């Protein structure tokens, strides 16, 4: 398994094909995130650094970490050759054709990082021997799953965001760790090991300073590097050997992380703006759930609360007048009061999240299963935070879906979980594109991706029934509901149904992944 997988001519073909497809969506609908990023271009281009995190002409203030601001600063220098007017802070909601072209192309071109990362990941997967057909090779399947990922396509290239480039950095860092494992057998183990781990750590530190949502998976990184990099040897039974601790390695690791953060936050600390920056990065004033509920535990919790309230009123246990009135998914009311169950505070979600990822983190500390064990832990951290986090966006499910693709092409068991998670997770992204014009695109792309992923009879009957239920939900929400009389009275009903139905699947996948991890604990070192 030491040899790197041969990437044929098909990889560039896949990458080129999807890039062409992205170009076709230039004139498609774009969300307010388009204006958000245009505004950031304007802020970073026309204002001094000290004003970046204070500027609030637009309601879409800069709320990503400083490295991303610098990234926008770099982009703005290209942007001025397209249309100078987009770089003025006062030009709110400015979207001239050349602005649209520039912004769309910037996403498409920065995706080169993602393409490169996908290529590196494809090189790390284990190939089955004897499968001649390209279409059945794990590396080919992985390339399609990553490059043609439905969620990434619609979120980045229609809805508008820069996730491709950020995921590229994440996957590249994951690939670095995976490469460590594949090159263990070679002679120059220690030097190579060092550099790969450190490169992975460096990339992740950069990523954290580009977008802080990746804090979700930071525990996995921290523990894994500490355990498998700073301790050079294990005992025979796989448990930790305390004597093998290498302070030098810890120092190297620490200095990398600290220097990246210093580079990013240093100027703002020097200007005494750290509290301001942090208040922009972590806006806890927002509600438990986003305007459209992400399919997580809190969606189920909210529905349970609502259901109990209705039941209580019916059974005359509760007075209707006493209940707090709030439209839950209207998007206007940020704070939502639960009427029967306990209201959830940010700190409660934090505790829940930490508790949910604790077993995963503990397991890689106690029994590290190499880089794949780390990847599994990373997934659980991502999903755990998605399940229990405060004000989670539905798009965050991609942090789990993309890395899971790597595991899915290697084992049937993981592929099963992958199918359930991607199908529900991707379907939960449907409400992002609510305009009728984009409907054929989202449906066709989703079908394409799903048909490609379903290659064999992997699922259990119940899972099949659940996934077929998605079709029913889709038809009900997209076709039947707009024609029904409830359209006026309960406009949020389809969103609610979608997120509740999908949250069941996401919860299920989360539990299955945990079961997989704990099963592996019994039989360590088995891959």
């Amino acid at each position: 398994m030491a040899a790197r997988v041969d990437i044929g001519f098909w990889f560039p073909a896949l990458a080129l094909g999807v890039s062409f497809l992205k170009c076709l969506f230039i004139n498609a609908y774009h969300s307010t995130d388009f204006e958000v990023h245009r505004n950031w271009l304007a802020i970073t281009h026309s204002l001094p650094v000290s004003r970046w995190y204070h500027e609030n002409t637009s309601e879409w203030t800069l709320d990503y970490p400083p490295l991303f601001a610098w990234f926008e600063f770099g982009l703005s220098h290209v942007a001025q050759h397209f249309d100078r007017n987009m770089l003025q802070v006062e030009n709110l909601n400015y979207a001239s054709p050349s602005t649209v072209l520039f912004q769309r192309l910037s996403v498409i071109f920065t995706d080169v990082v993602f393409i490169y990362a996908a290529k590196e990941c494809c090189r790390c997967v284990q190939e089955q021997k004897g499968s001649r057909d390209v279409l059945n090779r794990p590396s080919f399947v992985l390339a399609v799953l990553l490059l043609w990922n439905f969620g990434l396509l619609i979120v980045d290239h229609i809805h508008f965001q820069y996730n491709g480039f950020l995921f590229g950095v994440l996957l590249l860092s994951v690939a670095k760790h995976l490469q460590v494992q594949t090159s263990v057998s070679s002679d120059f183990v220690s030097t190579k090991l060092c550099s790969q781990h450190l490169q992975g750590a460096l990339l992740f530190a950069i990523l954290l300073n580009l977008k802080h949502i990746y804090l979700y998976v930071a525990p996995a990184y921290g523990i894994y590097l500490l355990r498998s990099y700073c301790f050079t040897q294990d005992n025979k039974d796989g448990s930790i050997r305390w004597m093998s601790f290498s302070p030098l390695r810890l120092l190297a690791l620490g200095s990398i992380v600290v220097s990246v953060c210093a580079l990013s936050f240093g100027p703002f600390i020097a200007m005494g703006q750290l509290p301001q920056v942090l208040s922009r990065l972590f806006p806890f004033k927002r509600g438990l759930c986003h305007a459209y509920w992400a399919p997580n535990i809190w969606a189920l919790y909210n529905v349970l609360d609502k259901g109990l309230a209705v039941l209580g009123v019916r059974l005359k246990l509760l007075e209707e007048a006493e209940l707090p009135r709030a439209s839950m998914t209207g998007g206007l009311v940020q704070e939502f009061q639960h009427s029967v169950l306990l209201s959830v505070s940010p700190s409660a979600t934090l505790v829940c999240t930490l508790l949910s990822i604790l077993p995963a983190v503990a397991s890689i500390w106690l029994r590290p299963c190499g880089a794949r064990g780390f990847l599994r832990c990373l997934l659980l951290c991502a999903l755990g935070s998605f399940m229990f986090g405060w004000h989670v966006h539905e798009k965050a499910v991609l942090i789990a879906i993309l890395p899971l693709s790597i595991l899915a092409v290697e084992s049937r068991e993981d592929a099963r979980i992958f199918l359930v998670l991607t199908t529900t997770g991707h379907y939960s992204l449907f409400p992002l594109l609510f305009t009728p014009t984009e409907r054929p695109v989202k449906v066709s792309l989703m079908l394409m991706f799903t048909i490609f992923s379903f290659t064999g009879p992997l699922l259990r009957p119940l899972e099949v029934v659940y996934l077929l239920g998605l079709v029913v939900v889709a038809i009900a929400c997209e076709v039947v509901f707009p024609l029904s009389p409830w359209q006026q009275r309960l406009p949020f009903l389809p969103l609610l149904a979608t997120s509740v139905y999908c949250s069941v699947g996401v919860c299920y996948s989360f539990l299955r992944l945990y079961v997989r991890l704990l099963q592996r604990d019994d039989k360590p070192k088995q891959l």
Partner: protein
Amino acid sequence: MKTWSLVSICVLLGVVVRWGVSLNSYSGAGKPPMFGDYEAQRHWQEVTYNLPLQEWYFNTTDNDLNYWGLDYPPLTAYHSWICAYVAKIINPDWVELHKSRGYESPTHKLFMRTTVLVADLLIYIPAVVLYCLYLTDGSSKKKISTLLCFLLYPGLILTDYGHFQYNGVSLGFALWGILALGLGWDVSGSMAFSLALNYKQMELYHALPFFCYLMGKCIKAGPMGRGLFLLVRIAATVLATFALCWLPFLSDPSQALQVVRRIFPVARGLFEDKVANTWCSLNTLIKIRSILSGDSQLYLSLACTFLAVLPSSFRLLTKPTFWHFKLALVNSSLAFFLFSYQVHEKSILLAALPVCLLLNDLPLIAIWFLQASTFSMLPLFLKDGLLVPYVVTSLAFLFFSLYLLSALDHCSEDELRMGAYNKLLFFLPKMDLACVVRWKFYISVAVMAVLSIVSIALVPPPHLPDLFPVLVSTTAFLHFFGTFVYFNVVQFSEPPSRKSQKKNN
């Protein structure tokens, strides 16, 4: 992976690309007073919905034929009428008589685009899928690759989903006809083709090969007995289909006559705009239109067209095999495009369809021609604001068809069916043909690329405002003429492939 899942992925990809193109502008968007083909189609809905059938083709107070009067055969009119019914349910403003002229809104655009997609999904795409699965040779992977390239042909996508037309319907019917003939169902094939003819009169470009193929088959089966019986059945089917389509207009001979007059507008001149055919290209050297009178122009073009079609038709008549049929379709439609009267640049799609059928047999030449045909419509696409989709789909088609069909590896003398050339050109020194063809291809693609960039980026000199369109059309004309000669020679050389014949017998 199973074949069905690959097929559905290809079809879905085709749909996504089509819809991606349709997000862009259409012909005549926001350009009063005449707008463009989009408004023409909308106007036909308005006319057919509101007026009695007897007035559709006549100039009346309610039907101004000078404003996009209906000039396609009855099936188009019925199609508009059906669409108008749906439009009426969604929003009556879209088809209101007189008041809806020049109606434009995002929802209406969505509706119009959807009608094109629905028609395509019902007629064109299934025919393509079936053709590629049942009538092409090779492994299932090869078939799927052909299918993908066929579906992604940019010329048709850009005209139907960008510019706005319903070519998919008439071409789809013709393809159903070809498919049926290929499978040996001659009667249903001729019915499908009659429907195509009744949707767009331009399908006449394909009529001669259909006629010669079926005639040749009948003769081969014995002019008396079985052959005659087949002929009678086919003739009856065609007549019945025509009668059915024209039924409402047959009650009054003046009605039918008026429809025919609308469909064949002889008064419009030898050619319009810049079209890549012989007359327009010749026009840069000799001003034919000022030398010859209108009538003699008509006769000249008729004679030339007849002469150009004659060889391939004759050959097909004597050798009615499916392989020759496909080649004759290309030759006939190209002959019509190059020499006939009143040709539009979009008519090249009629030649492109049979060339698509040859993607599997002669990949390089087919790709080359298809690329040139898309390129020939560049001025039109630029006028409609379709620059980005044009660039993206052309590049994607070029790259993927070359890669998937490994076209550049299949250009030996044998694979290009060029044996006859060497016999013809025996006096030239022997060269490595594959290498020559490959280099010609590279140069031609480079020329097309440069001309595309030049027409996009540069402003023409003031005394030659049409410089770039003329250059584009002349370049495209050279390609088309070369392809025309090539396919004629191929049709006259012995078919080296066994399978395409076997399938037929």
